[in-house]
């Protein structure tokens, strides 16, 4: 499976490479994939680059951790305490579908023009789907599966750990994957717009200065970060279903 994926991507990149070298694609807009890959590889040893990667990675990690932990806990509370769930679930759902990113000027005023503002905005945006999906996942657990556990006289903790959690995991982790997407979008977009921080700023700068290779290197690194997080989330999901 892995081999097939890698080969498919390699074929695509090779086609682009040929297209750029034969100038079917304008090298001014599309750099050669080989030089982008070389750039990504050398960025690992380039202090400036690494610094930017670290800033973006740190912001994504922090915002996602806050949103993930707070979201799952709040979702659990909304499920556990019925009146709270009835009262707040519609509100969370309404906020979820509204463009909270546009609140960014307020966050700048509160936190200043720095990474903290970006992390707070990303976390707020991403916590909503996490709450919503966690609450719905727990409410939707099949009663019969719980009755299997209850008929075995299982303790409340074991019921939760071995039936509730694994049964709810697919939906909770769908929420977490959406949360990750939000965090990445908000962090990179804010870095881009505000011209502060890491890879998002680099994308903006490279675009402004027509440095196509740097631009694609930055985008490539963002994709790598995203893939790494998805891998992490998948591992956590497996753990929950054990």
């Amino acid at each position, binding site marked *: 499976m892995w081999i097939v994926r890698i080969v498919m991507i390699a074929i695509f990149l090779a086609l682009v490479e040929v297209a750029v070298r034969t100038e079917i694609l304008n090298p001014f807009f599309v750099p050669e994939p080989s030089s982008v890959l070389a750039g990504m590889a050398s960025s690992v040893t380039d202090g400036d680059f690494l610094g930017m990667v670290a800033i973006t990675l740190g912001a994504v990690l922090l915002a996602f951790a806050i949103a993930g932990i707070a979201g799952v806990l709040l979702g659990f509370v909304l499920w556990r305490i019925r009146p709270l769930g009835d009262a707040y679930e519609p509100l969370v759902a309404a906020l979820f579908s509204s463009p909270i990113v546009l609140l960014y000027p307020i966050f700048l005023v509160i936190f200043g023009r720095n990474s903290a503002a970006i992390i707070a905005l990303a976390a707020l945006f991403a916590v909503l789907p996490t709450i919503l999906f966690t609450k719905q996942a727990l409410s939707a657990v*099949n009663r*019969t*599966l719980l*009755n*299997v*556990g*209850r*008929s*075995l*006289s*299982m303790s409340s903790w*074991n019921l939760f750990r*071995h*039936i509730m959690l*694994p*049964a709810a*995991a697919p939906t909770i982790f769908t929420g977490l994957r959406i949360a990750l997407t939000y965090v990445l979008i908000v962090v990179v977009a804010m870095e881009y717009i505000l011209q502060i921080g890491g890879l998002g700023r680099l994308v903006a700068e490279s675009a402004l200065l027509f440095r196509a290779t740097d631009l694609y290197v930055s985008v490539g690194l963002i994709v790598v970060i995203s893939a790494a997080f998805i891998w992490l989330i998948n591992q956590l999901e497996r753990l929950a*279903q054990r």
Partner: protein
Amino acid sequence: MATTTDAPAGRAVSGEDNLFTIEDLSVTYPSTDGASRGVTALEHINLNVGKGEFVSVVGPSGCGKSTLLSTVSGLLTGFDGRITVRGDTITGPHPNVGVVFQEESTFPWRNVLKNVEFGLEMRGLGKEERRKRALDMLSLVGLEDFVRSYPHHLSGGMKQRVAIARTLVMEPSILLLDEPFGALDEQTRIILGEELLRIQRALDQTVLLITHNIQEAILLSNRVVVLSARPGRMKAVVNIDLPAERDSTLLATDEFAVLVGKVWSVLREESLKAFAQEQKQDQTNHEETAHA
């Protein structure tokens, strides 16, 4: 109790070998809107089941069969009357009681083997031991080739066999089964029924089986309880005086046909009532919708 056939009095069931007893059990589900009185599912059920006995319950759909099973298994606690298991009054699930549910109940995140190991794992049994017992049970229900499969790759009947194996592997002294063969085809149903009977004899288990299949009830049981249309009352108890050593060849005998006739005559009447109830319900629903 309107006993149209043999009363259970013929059975000498003294307190000692009663493995479980149901005394004057009535169950009313509270209404959700608080306006009406709620649904009375069962009324005045009395049943004594002795050790090693196999009792089946038949009745029209919606008469409270699953409710009966929920109360005996300790999962439903809001009822009037008393249920005892080995002399203990039931207030919650009992460790000697195993349940197979009517609805699909396999764990989708566990493969077949790990599903069957579940209860043993929760009781803290070692890996080797529980694996061995689960594999033995899986070959008994004919799933030895699907040990590593996940439930979503299995048919409804196979999933139900996994659920049965998961309960049987715990070797409960009392086994409660709610239409366990409902999703199976006729042949598999008969063969698994015979298998269940064999296991029950071997482990000297006490079984309460809920079914909508009269043949199955008669073939497997010592007694068949017929419930009335909702609210479920004991309409009749039919003693099955077939030889203890039996198999599905009995299906073709005259004796068997007589028993089927006996059960069916009661059940038919109640099913017609249940059917009329349902139509009336539909009609009121219809009128309510029309008014709204």
